[in-house]
């Protein structure tokens, strides 16, 4: 599937990845999914130039070792030319307006989304 998009899901909860995978199977367009369990893992992945660049990152906030906020800080260290086509969606169980505000203040965050995520949402962002 040469044209299919690459989605990186970053969440410490295994169930989240399972749900995303399950929903993607039912999405209109086929996608590749990679799972990361904290901010450090995904950052390491992105830092390695030989890895394929994701089109979409689904980023949880509350994670051990390196949480979503920390990741976003580190993310700014990456080259702009590399990050400019990556859409980051903050996907969290939080409905705290403060979290939403903070996420929307980040120049890299496309949208703040409260869990649970649905097929419709995924269809929307893949398109």
């Amino acid at each position, binding site marked *: 599937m040469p044209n299919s998009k690459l989605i990186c899901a970053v969440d*410490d*909860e*295994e*169930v*989240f990845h*399972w*749900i995303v995978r*399950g*929903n993607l199977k*039912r999405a209109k367009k086929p996608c590749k999914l990679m799972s990361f*369990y*904290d901010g450090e893992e995904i950052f390491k992945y992105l830092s390695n130039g030989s890895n394929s660049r994701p089109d979409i990152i689904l980023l949880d906030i*509350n*994670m*051990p*070792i*390196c949480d979503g906020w*920390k990741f976003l800080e580190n993310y700014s260290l990456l080259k702009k030319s590399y990050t400019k086509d990556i859409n980051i969606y903050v996907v969290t*169980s*939080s*409905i*705290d307006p403060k979290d939403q505000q903070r996420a929307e203040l980040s120049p890299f965050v496309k949208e703040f989304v*409260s*869990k*649970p*995520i*649905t097929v419709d949402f995924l269809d929307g962002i893949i398109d």
Partner: protein
Amino acid sequence: MNELDSNGSVTTMKDQDQRLRKALSVAKMSLLELDITNETSNWSSHPSNHFYELSSKTNGSLNEYVDLVHPMDRNDVIVLIKSAKPGQKFHNQHRVLWPDGSYHWVESSGMTFNDDGILKMTGTVQDITEKKELEIEREDWKIRHELVAKAAGIIVYDYDIKTGDIIWSGNVSEVLGFTPKEMGNIDRWVELIHPEDRERAFRELEEAQKSLNAYEVYYRFLKSNSKYCDIYDRGTFLEREGEAYRMLGMMSDVTEWKKSQEALSESENRFRLLINNLNVGVGLYDLTMVPIVHNAAAYKLLGISEKQFVGKAAIDPDWNVVDMEGNRMRPENYPIPQAIDTKKSIRQTVMGVFRPKMNDRVWLMVDADPVLDDDGKILHVICTYSDFTARKRVEEILAEKNEQLMITSDLVGRKNERLLEFAQIVSHNLRSPLSSIAALVDLYEKCTLEEKDEAISFIREVAGKALNTIDDLNEVLKVQQSEHMDLQVIRFEDALNEVKTLLKPNLKEKNAMIVSDFKEAVKIRYPNIYLESIFLNLVSNSIKYIDPGKTPKISIKSKRADGDIIFEFKDNGKGIDLQKNGNDIFKFGKTFHSKNDSKGVGLYLIKNQIRTMGDEIEVKSKPDRGTTFRIKFRNQHAK
């Protein structure tokens, strides 16, 4: 003298003449015959006569005598002589130059007659100098007296007791509207006195007259306009052989004075009444702080008697004065010395004064106001005291209530803060599993059979997690609800042993080693369950977060520092990167090691417990270098 007149000769009756001479000499009198026709004078010639020297000087010449007459009287004398006609009586007073150089008043009287064609004036001449001078002086006094009486607006009376006549002078008409004549005698005086005062005035007059004491009395007296005025009457008696015969005195109209006096005393009475019935103490102090006047309330408030107070220093060491905050007040900071010092009003100083007599403390609100003269010099200090005790008590109650309120509000604030935190935890940590369940259920319907099993097992897992979270939150709630935990005296050793028993399987599994030193602080006063929770969570973390292949080593130590106990817990676990996670380490649901059964509750829980007790916990850690927790248990004084 008749004999002299009828016989025309004095030499015929020798004896009689001798006696006459003597009498004339004593009476400073001389017989005199002036021969106007021959211009000669003929005096009694005996040397003992009062006029002997004078007559010798004139050498019997009429003209020479006339020359000696006082220039002012001389003309009268010349006219008298020149106009003398036979059968006419003459009478004259004039001054004549006495041989000693002074002028004497002389009075001459007699008759002129024709003696064989010669005109003669025959009669007596008498030296009346003393009498005349007295008369002049009396006239002078009378004039002066009248002037004074008029000027003073007083009435002067001269009462002849025997006849009852009164001579009125002075300001009679101005004061009473009567002429002196209309004033009349003593009966009239009595009649004009107000009927109610009459008897008293008259009785006192009789008594004064009898005792010869001064008469001094006030009475109302009728004026010509039928109105009464107030009279002050003062008189003295002249006595002869112990009996008053004359009374001299003055009456003055004191109506206005009496009115103002009455008004003054009434206003003074009212003022006294007001001051003494004030509930506020008022005092007047001199510059040495000695009280001059005080009202009753002042003594009462200060708990002393008037005798103890007035005239003595205003500062009694027994008062043991304290200020609003209960600190001892230095005498120089009292309001009166300050008012004297600054010349300004010192307002609303609150003083707690100990009353030795009553053995209590009264709170006074004191104002001190300096009284300055026109030059700004301080004369007195007026000081007012009001009883502040009731207000002070109210204030104390208020302060107490306020403090309670502050504590309550602080408590409420803290509770509120935790409630908010709790609500966040609930919304976050419960929302997470629930949203997963919702998504899983949604997927379930579209799943293959194989996937369905997987979905169910996820649902089970997530639901279990949610339940655990609720249980954890319940633990947290328990801590927060028990604000007033019972304190127990616990040996650290005992608490540690309890935990060792609880975690026995885990400790054994990992071969964990625990070294403890509680020698310095053996015991602590703390809620038992909190201390156990602290031990349990810290020890179980140390075992849980240990690198594989490593043996957990824990060392625990208790120390004393300024009444606090410092509790140190050290392990050799994975450690936490505090630079990354410093803010989150004690937060609920924060985990720092991936793929573990960590829930992020333990540290949150003990932090809450420690905070509830007003104590502090801090942490030092580096990845792979272990973790050190330091807890400061406050107010743990060794007994």
